[in-house]
């Protein structure tokens, strides 16, 4: 499916009585990588989880506002969250492969569990997704023999990426995808983001400002549930327009 841009308007999110996001509005361009940076607890993760309606799966969580992906109204009447999540892939902070499934079944899970069973097609999709996630050569010999949990942390994260790509999403959300990985695995993931943004709209939450500077075309800075600033990454890291952004990226807090 063709990648689409994301349009967010007046987005508010709550955990019970505590408001986690305040009136966020932003345009996330198609086929670019957009980084979300900010100190812990600023609402970065909550924000991306609102884009694919994962936020509402938590107890007492609530969302208000408008999100559209292409011309699809994410919170529209009668729009199923399940359908949204098929179009918006997600990679989580900690690698979370399905422990009882083989590498092959992990990648095929999104299709198989939605009723897609064409063996030949599945073989092709699994290979293509694993190649896309730069994992194919490392696992091609034990696709059906080994569990997804038997891989190393970095490999597991690329497996999760392949799993998300297999359902051919339009948007790829990555919630601190490299924060639990060593520097070499991190570099691999970053290289992949570089490749992936040619085809997908990528949103990446990161703690690591160098990472944002390396991979993202645009960067948004979040603070205490508000979006302070959104700009081209280059501009953001050289001439931020807000004092708080400058304080954060120069390491005065956070």
């Amino acid at each position, binding site marked *: 499916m063709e990648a689409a841009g994301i349009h967010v308007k007046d987005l508010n999110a709550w955990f019970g009585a505590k408001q986690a996001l305040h009136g966020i509005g932003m345009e996330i361009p198609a086929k670019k990588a957009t980084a979300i940076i900010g100190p812990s607890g600023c609402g970065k993760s909550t924000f991306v989880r609102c884009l*694919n309606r*994962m936020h509402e*799966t938590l*107890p007492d969580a609530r969302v208000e506002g408008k999100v559209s992906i292409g011309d699809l109204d994410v919170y529209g009447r009668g729009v199923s969250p*399940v*359908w*949204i*999540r*098929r*179009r918006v*892939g*997600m990679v*989580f902070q*900690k690698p*979370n*492969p*399905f*422990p*009882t*499934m*083989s590498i092959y079944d992990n990648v095929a*899970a*999104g299709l198989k*569990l*939605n009723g897609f069973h064409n063996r030949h097609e599945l073989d092709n999709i699994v290979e293509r997704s694993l190649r896309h996630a730069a994992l194919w050569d490392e696992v091609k010999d*034990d696709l059906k*023999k*080994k*569990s997804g*949990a*038997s891989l190393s942390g970095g490999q597991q994260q690329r497996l*999760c990426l392949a*799993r*998300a790509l297999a*359902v051919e999403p339009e948007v790829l959300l990555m919630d601190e995808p490299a924060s639990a990985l060593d520097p070499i695995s991190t570099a691999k993931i970053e290289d992949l983001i570089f490749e992936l943004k040619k085809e997908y709209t990528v949103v990446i939450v990161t703690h690591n400002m160098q990472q944002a500077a390396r991979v993202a075309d645009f960067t948004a800075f979040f603070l205490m549930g508000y979006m302070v600033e959104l700009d081209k990454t280059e501009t953001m890291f050289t001439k931020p327009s807000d004092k708080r952004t400058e304080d954060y990226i120069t390491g005065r807090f956070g």
Partner: protein
Amino acid sequence: MLKSSQNISVRRRVTNWLALGSICLATFIVTIPLFLILGTVITRGIGALNWDFLTQIPKPIGETGGGMANAIVGSIELLAVASLIGVPLGIGSGVFLAEYGRNKWGNMVRFTADVLNGVPSIVIGLTAYALVVVVQKHFSLLAGSVALGIMMVPTICRTTEEVLLLVPQAIREAALGLGIPKWRTILSVVLRTASAGIVTSIMLAFARVAGETAPLMFTAFGNQYWSKSINQPTAALPLQIFTYAIMPYEQAHAQAWTGALVLISLIMFTVILFRFISSRSTIKGAS
């Protein structure tokens, strides 16, 4: 300084040794009854164990020979039908408690399951009597299975809930994030991840009810002959053991011991078989 640190290390080593020793001793004491039971049952039961015992039905009192074939088959049938009733109900309610039960209704179900777990088995037998025997107007294999099935439910339910709660939230999120509907996530991802624990819970419940005698007395009732349908009274190993054990004949006692040996073997065989099947279905490196 050096001296005092050495003292600590000596004291630590002694404490460690004492703690380890007492744990090992406790473990050893716990296993004694098990081996006593197994030893007694095997030495007393092996004598009357022969091909006839496994293939013949009981001979009239006073005649030698005969076996418990009808009771062995009866027990297997009772447990199979009981599992058909108890396993789906137990797993179903366990899934409900773990995935949808964080509320008043869930607490009520949880409380009910715990109370049911503590209800004496003879009371459950009476319930099955009232529900099935009275309605059917005769004792039956079905009535016995209902009693045993009800007894399996609370154990399977609560253990299933526990093991499902051990499945990390991240695994559920991974599935939901792929656009897999919640029911499918629970069925194909959560239950599959917890399958080893669920098999354990079924085995626990199975082993518990396999030896139950009281709830069968006025449901399955017992039968000196082959039971030909699910609606007829049936013999069962625990019932047959009980009947023979209270008879004033040496030969009946010997057969009761052999019945006990067969019952224990049956339970052990089933548990090992299911463990084997469930371990075969997991793949390399699965945690």
